[in-house]
């Protein structure tokens, strides 16, 4: 039942908005097409403005990954994390999730194929993938686009939130699905 509703929402959300926003505007006497075009112009500028920030962050991440530094970090951390009940298999996902959406998606796909989607690791990886975001990327992009250089305590706040999400996912999955 709940599943069916969620399916309906995810199928209809975008078409609904694409229809509802212009219709509402038209009923309010807005020249919808001209207004759309004038707003849409900004899209191009905004995407171009993203380039320097994306280049900066992706290059740094890829250096870290391609050098083998990320693998060493994962090996180093999987021991202590195993002690608190986080399976070693999801450690790479936890470390990469805040950094790169694409890479995290790749790891989750790999874990689901290898362990099976209905295994403990598969469920935990799914929950982690769905419940957190690419924090580091979002912060550089959002602040970068408006030229803010001093981000102050934004990164620590966001990363503590992520950490809480990971711990919550581990505890909840164990409670709901068993160890």
């Amino acid at each position: 039942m709940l599943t069916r509703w969620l399916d309906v929402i995810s199928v209809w959300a975008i078409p609904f908005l694409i229809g509802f926003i212009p219709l509402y505007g038209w009923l309010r006497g807005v020249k919808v097409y001209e207004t759309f075009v004038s707003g849409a112009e900004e899209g191009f500028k905004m995407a171009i403005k993203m380039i320097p920030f994306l280049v900066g962050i992706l290059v740094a991440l890829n250096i870290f990954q391609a050098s083998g530094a990320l693998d060493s970090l994962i090996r180093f951390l999987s021991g202590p994390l195993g002690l608190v009940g986080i399976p070693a298999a999801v450690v790479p996902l936890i470390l990469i999730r805040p950094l790169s959406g694409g890479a995290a998606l790749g790891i989750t796909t790999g874990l689901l194929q290898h362990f099976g989607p209905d295994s403990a690791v598969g469920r935990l990886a799914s929950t982690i993938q769905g419940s957190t975001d690419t924090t580091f990327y979002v912060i550089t992009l959002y602040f970068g686009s408006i030229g803010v250089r001093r981000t102050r305590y934004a990164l620590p706040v966001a990363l503590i939130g992520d950490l809480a999400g990971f711990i919550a996912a581990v505890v909840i999955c164990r409670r709901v699905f068993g160890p």
Partner: protein
Amino acid sequence: MVNVVWLVLIIGGLVVSAVHGTMIPVTQAIMTSSEKAVEIALGFIGIMTLWLGMARIAEESGMMRTLSRLMNPLVSRLFPGIPKDHPAMGNMLMNISANVLGMGGAATPFGLKAMEELQKLNTLKERASANMITFLAINTASINLIPATVIALRVAAGSHNPTEIVGPTILATTISSLVAVSVDRLLRYWHHDTNPNG
């Protein structure tokens, strides 16, 4: 902080690659990833253009204002100091709603627009305002009702119950959001941010 993380990623990576002798793949990664970054940004143009056009209609028709007025009692506590009808509020709400519905592509343009509006209120343009940080704390915790991508992945991997992780996901994301907002509140007072827009 971002500066330090960025530098550590680069220097740490280079040092390790010197030790492991992985200089050639690292050089390749530098080249391909800078190309890839531009590709991603260009790929964004279509969806950004579409949603920013829609956002303008929503703004001009008063839909944003209605939305922010409806939600105002809830969010004005989170974002003190933003005038009631300010477009920053409407854009932040659209961004959060898009995230909640799992429409990542629609969320980013509204989010960037919201940052632009917050920047208009910001008194020190190079420095993040307290309200910006709160917005990002909520945004990166990504309150998400429909993890559509994950469900699709699970279906593809042959799961017997692909949506069973929806409940745990909602709960985990709620907890991470609550923690992020609480820590943000603590640090806001700790940093003596008396001007939420400064």
